Every structure is written in C-alpha cells, then in structure tokens.
C-alpha cells in the first residue's frame, strides 16, 4: 500500500476542507478515507438551503455546498478512497482501514486529521419508556431515508427534541405530505437555531412545546401513538399534563455525539463537555500530529464554521510535517477556561509561539442569556466585554484573540471566557 503524509479520516465537510487547505499549503501526499459511497458526508442528505452564507456569501443547499469542496478536491487531484472504513488509529499514527478492493490495509501517516463528524443520540440512550416498535427514527436516519433513499417513514409524525435536524425534518416531512403534530423539547429552550424554529416550525404552524418529553410509546409492531407530558424544573414529567398523539412515526432529535471511538482508542485526551478531543491553538490533539476539526471536535451549528476550522487543521498538519514532526513543548502555554455560563472553549490551550495573528476561540453557552456580556479575562483582568442581546445554547459563539494583545501580557497563564450580566 502506498504511504501518505496526511491521512484524513472522513470525507465530509471537515475532511474536504482540511484536504484542500493541506494541498494548497504545499503538501502533495494526502489521502481522504470516506466510509460512504461518495464524498460530502452528511451534507448529501441536507437538501435544504441555508449553507454557505459566510463562506461563499450565497445560500446553497447541502449537496451544493459539499460540491464546492469536492470539486476542489478533484481539481487539485487529492486522492481519496470511498466505501472505506477506518478500523483503527494507532498512537503512532498508523491508520488501519478496510474496503472491498484493497482489503484491510495500514498506512503509517505523518499526520492524521480526525474529521469523523458526529452521530445522533438514539432512543435507547434517552430511556424513553414504552414499546419498541418500528417507526422510531433518529431525525438524521429519517432524513437519509426520505432525501436519499426516497422513502417516507410515515404520515403522522411526533418529534422529540428540537435540534436542527429535527426542525429541518419537521419541514421536510410536512413538504412531503406528512402531518407533523408536535415538536416536544425537554429543555425550556430549543437546542436548534432560531432561524430554523421560525422557518421550519412557525411557518408551517407546527407547535413547539418546550419543557415537554415523551412518556409513553404505544404500538406493538409499529408506532400507533405517543404521549408527551410537561416536565418540571427537575426535568421529571408532571402527572396530569399528559397529551396523547396518534401517529405512526416518532423522530428523535435529542443531541449529537461526536464520533470519537477511533480517537479514544488512539489515546487522544477527551474533553468531557464537548465529547471531542482536547486541542491546542493548532487544533492538535494530545497526540502530536493528530489534528481534529468539525463535528468530531465539537458540534457546530453552521457548516461554514466547520470549513473554516478544518482549513486551519489542514494548514497546521502541513506545518507540523514541514517543521519535522516535532512535538512542540513550551513554557508559554496559556490555558483557556470557560466558566459562568460558558460551557467550553475550543481550543483549550494556546502556545503563543505557534499562534496566528488572530485566533478564533469558539464556545457555547449552557442556558439562554438575554442582554448579557461575553467577557474575556487575562488572568484576573477583564480585557473584553461584548454586549449580546441574546445568547442561546443552540448557537455557537466566538471571540477573536489578537496575538499582539497577548504579547502585552508576557506572564499570562490563563484566559477565561464567561457570561456576565453587567
């Protein structure tokens, strides 16, 4: 088997953007491994519009957005293998993969870019009581069946969870002729984008019931009805608030989980908040030369940010190889902390020597905050104080750090991001 400098695990938006950036940064030895039968990842089933406003300044569908990058991959002659499952990534960056034609093969890579994306939390992990019939789908599985395979799961739909895929599927199922009766959300706020609530639910008169969950699923063979109930502040159902909906389909959009089995077995340190790898300013994990980007790193709200992040991962992988594959250690490591409503930051550490002039730090908040401030502290000194009319868990936030600003604080140990009322 041919060897490669950079192996990219996953040919979705993150993997594609990383590959293009790595190639443009001067590395010609790149291989993308993709488990599906075409490049593009989850975007292929996202046939709705709204992609690319930041990257291309125009509104594209998912497949169109993906194709912009696929075309670059093809034009640049970047190699890729489809229908290929990566089975293992060893700590020494040997990637083991398998497909029908090549069998099982191993590539000793100089750098690995993790771009595996995420998966949906299934019914089982939610402990929803009731029967276990056909007709229960994660929203993304239903999206694949409808948009790619061309089959309708059912005609009368209840959706649990208001993640973006659930919202998008509420609209899709409606457009395909189904009746979406209700979207129930356990939390007192939606985990999806505001624009999706407006465009996918409000515009179609689909009720969103916050602080509600499914308490029973009926139907021995196939779903026949679902009962939802209001939950209290402890998130336990309140007796007497049950409402029964006859339906044949229950869609679940209850959170996305970065797909990090390979990262874990490689020995990459994980962030328990994001369920993604801990990374430094170069998007490099705890294993030197292993980079992470996209939803495998932390779940994004917009693909534009995935592409931007992945571009940096690709460039940094090339730089790592060009610099001789050395582990960069330094005393000058600044820790990034999220507190007071900010849940996490990506990255978790900054090595000033390796930092670009501008560094985007992304984070999410843990609750809805109105008329609040995103504050940044350099050690104990507040250096940024940006007023925000609304902050919500469904939308990813960012701050931009300037290297020259950090240079003014030579002994800086810790940067803290927090949400403040004033």
């Amino acid at each position, binding site marked *: 088997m041919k060897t490669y400098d950079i192996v990219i695990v996953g040919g979705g938006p993150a993997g594609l953007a990383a590959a293009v950036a790595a190639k443009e940064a001067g590395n010609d030895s790149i291989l993308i491994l993709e488990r599906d039968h075409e490049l593009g990842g989850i975007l292929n089933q996202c046939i709705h519009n709204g992609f690319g406003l930041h990257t291309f300044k125009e509104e594209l569908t998912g497949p169109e957005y993906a194709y912009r990058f696929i075309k670059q991959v093809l034009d640049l002659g970047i190699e890729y293998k489809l229908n290929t499952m990566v089975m293992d990534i060893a700590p020494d960056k040997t990637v083991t993969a398998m497909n029908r034609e090549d069998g099982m093969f191993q590539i000793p890579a100089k750098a690995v870019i993790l771009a595996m994306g995420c998966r949906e939390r299934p019914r089982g992990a939610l402990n929803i009581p009731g029967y276990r019939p056909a007709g229960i789908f994660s929203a993304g599985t239903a999206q694949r069946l409808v948009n790619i395979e061309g089959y309708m799961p059912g005609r009368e739909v209840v959706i649990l969870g208001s993640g973006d895929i659930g919202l998008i599927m509420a609209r899709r199922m409606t457009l395909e002729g189904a009746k979406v009766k209700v979207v129930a959300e356990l939390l007192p706020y939606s985990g999806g984008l505001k624009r999706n609530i407006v465009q996918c639910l409000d515009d179609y008169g689909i009720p969103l019931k916050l602080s509600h969950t499914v308490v029973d699923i009926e139907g021995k063979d*196939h779903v026949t009805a679902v009962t939802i109930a209001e939950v209290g502040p402890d998130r336990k159902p309140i007796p007497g608030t049950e409402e029964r909906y006859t339906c044949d389909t229950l869609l679940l959009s209850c959170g996305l989980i970065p797909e990090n089995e390979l990262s874990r077995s490689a020995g990459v340190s994980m962030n328990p908040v994001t369920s993604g790898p801990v990374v430094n300013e170069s998007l490099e994990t705890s294993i030197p030369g292993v980079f992470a980007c996209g939803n495998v790193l932390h779940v994004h709200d917009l693909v534009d940010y995935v592409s931007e992040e992945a571009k940096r991962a690709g460039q940094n992988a090339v730089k790592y190889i060009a610099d001789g594959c050395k582990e960069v250690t330094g005393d000058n490591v600044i820790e990034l902390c999220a507190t007071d409503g900010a849940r996490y930051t990506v990255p978790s550490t900054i090595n000033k020597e390796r930092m670009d002039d501008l560094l985007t730090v992304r984070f999410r908040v843990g609750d809805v905050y109105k008329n609040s401030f995103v504050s940044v502290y350099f050690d104990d000194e507040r250096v940024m104080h940006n007023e925000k009319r609304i902050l919500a868990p469904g939308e990813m936030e960012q701050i931009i750090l300037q290297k020259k600003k950090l240079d003014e604080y030579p002994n800086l140990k810790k940067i803290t991001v927090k949400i403040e009322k004033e």
Partner: protein
Amino acid sequence: MLYDVIVIGAGVTGSAVARELSRYETNVCVLEKCEDVCEGTSKANSAIVHAGFDAAEGSLMAKLNVRGNEMMGDLAKDLDIPFKRNGAMVVCIHKEALDGLKDLYNRGIANGVKELKILNREEALEMEPNLSENVEGALWAPTSGIICPFELNIAMAENANMNGVDFRFNTEVEDIKKGEDGNWHLRTNNGEYVARYVVNAAGVYADVIHNMVSADKIHITPRRGDYCLLDKTVGGHVKHTIFPQPTNLGKGVLVSPTIHGNLIVGPTAVDIENKEGNNTTAAGIDDLIAKAGDHVRNLPIRNVITSFAGLRAHESHHEFIIKEVDDAPHFIDCAGIESPGLTSSPAIGEMVGNMMKDMMGLKEKANWISTRKGVKKTEGLSVEERNALIKENPAYGTIICRCESITEGEILDAIHRPLGARSLDGVKRRTRAGMGRCQAGFCSPRTMEILHRELGIPYEKITKSGGKSNIVLERTKGEVSGS
C-alpha cells in the same frame, strides 16, 4: 401433511425440543406465530446460565437448571456459540441476612451445584472491587455463566432444521381439536396442521394452548422485567454476575457483563395481564436504577444504550410443567418455563426428547448432524485473516455496522443460511448489526438495502421484526416514469 410431532413455539424451549427430536427418525414441524425464532421470552432476559442454587430443592426446576448448566459447555462448542463461565456472586449487604446466604449455599449443595463457596466481605471485595461498600459476604458460584440467548436459540433451531425439522413462521395456533382419526388437528391462520403428538412450548401463551385441550386449566402470568443495557466501554465494571439475595419475586436486579462485553442491569418484576405487554415503564427503569446501586457501586448507568422489557412465563406454582397432559394423551406441556428457563432449555429438550422417544418408540437417525457453524465472525481477526476472507468474498471488506464492526459478509451469511434472517431484527440477532451504541441509526438503511437486494423484498415490505413493523411506508414521490 401429517406430522409425527408439532412443536408450538420456536423459543429456546421449542427449539431445544425440536433439536432433540431431530435425532430420531420422525417428522417434526415447529409452528411459530412470529416471523422468526426467539421472539418471545427467549429474546429478552438476563442471558445468564444460572448455577442452580436458587430453585427449590427437589424441584424439576432445580434438576433441569443444574443439568442445563452442565450441558451448556459442550452444547456451546457443538453449536459454535459464545459462552463463558464468568461466575456469579450473590451479595449480602445486611449482617442479619447472612444466614440467608448460608441457606442458599445449602440449597445449592442439595441441588447438586458444584464449587459453591461462601465469601467474607474482604474476599468478595477482592474478587469484585466495585461491589457496594456495604457488602457483608457473598455466595460464590463459579459455574454460573453468560451466553447470547439469541445465538443459543437460533443455533438450536438451525441445527434442528439442518436435521430435517420444518419451521413454519407467522403461523399462530388458534384452536386444537382431537380428530376422529386420533390425531391432533391444529387450526392456524395459515390453514390446518395435523400431528400425532403436540409439544406445547408457547411461553407466556402456554396456558392458552394447554387450555385448548385440557379441562385441568393452568394459568401463566406474564411477569414483566425491565432491563438497561450499557455501553461496552463500561462492560468491565463488574467481571462476575452480581445478584442481590433472592426474594419471593425472583432473583432480583442483577448486574452482569454480557457475553459480548456490554453491561446488563435488570430485571424488575411486575405481574401483568397483557401477554404482549413488553413495554418499559418510567417507574420500572427508575426502580431498576435505584436497586442496582444497592449492590454495585458507581454503576455507570448514564452509559445506557438501550432499555427493554421481557416477559417471564410465570406459572402460579413457580415450577416447570413438563409432562404429558393427563386428560390429553399425546399432548406434552412445556409450560411455566420462566427463569432459569434459558439455562434449562437444553435439559428440557433432552428430557422431552427421551420422553417422546419412549412414548413413540423412536429410532435414532444414522446421519444426525450434531454440530452447526455459526455466522462467520470477523471481530478479532488479524489483518492477514481478514484479507484472506476478503479475497474469497469482498463483502467481508465492507463494514455495515460501524459500532459493532459487522461486515456485509456477515450479514449475507445471516440471510443465506438455514432459517435465515428476513428482517432488521433477524439480522441484528444473528450478527449484532444494529446492537451497538448508535442502535442501528447508521446501519439500518444499509441493512435494508441488503435485505432488498438479496431477498427481493420491496423496501416498503422490509420490517423491523415481521408483522406490521415495516420501516418505511411508501415512495416519497412515486416511481419515476421511464426508469
């Protein structure tokens, strides 16, 4: 067609009986109301091969449990199914209950259970560090084991089928009458079946079937048990099967590794009326989580990947009823087969087989095949072994189920074998595709494509598990004309 024997039910009991009968020169048919074997009590239980200390001394249950446990090692080898004697501990957490442990030990000895031992607190904690702080002592039963109930059931049925036993699925017995010809006439939704002998292995419906032919009525109560199955990452939380001390409702909530490396927690015990009532309840799951923490510390319950409920076929006297029905000659009951029914199934098969051999004067077949090869598994194969397999059949190079690393080759094997899979659950129980942490979110569209291609089943007709459990309803926009 006149059969010598009709077995009603293709769960572990019916399949074990069918396999034993397949040793003899006799024609046997198994009638199953569901679309596959292993669809009732057999599919949802603790998957434990019990040692046999729990059943009442002198009971048939005790005898068949101990015998079934003894048989399991060789049977698992013959039928190529994974089985491991991981040992069980009955954990006492109250000083005043230590005598109960001793009683259990004595009962086990009387039942013929080997190698039992009482452990003190320190010994118990040394063997199993994640036991509760409150442990006072434990009964140690090294012969207890873990097995895959699906594979045991499927393997026995496949082996019976290889040896000439017919299986009729989606065939529900609605009535049974003794004909003037002296044979049993079974009315089903798929026409009439006639047999000289009938074996009733109908699980929670064994009372309904029995009561069709006997004036001496029996009653089977479905006793529901909720379970949680936890991710493989926490499968090693305990090494042994951890039981609380038993109560009159059963063996209590156990915590155990499964043969495939998950952690199982359960069951609860709630008597219900509905024989199809295998729905989980919030109260049941809450109860389960509360109880499991009594004996095992830091139980990683957040790592649950699925919860499910099973129904035990509880007969009022808590004893197996395995005999020819007094007022219905040539009709043999296997009723009240609740825990330890899975463990006992090979022994039940043996007992019924011997009984019928004598009753019917059966002769052994010269060419009976005692072994069966399971679905060829790729997990744990070396790169060279994988490549040899892929060279022979490229389908082994395509992963369909990401979580459990199941290849297309394994799924094809599961479909194209005796009594092969025809549904998503059928594939799942034969290969584990869809049984991992994403619970078939990734693989189900891919498995549907394979079922469609291999069996010619239209997408709309592909089911989760037969009946009306179709996955999709119809095409979104109808067939494209001219295609």
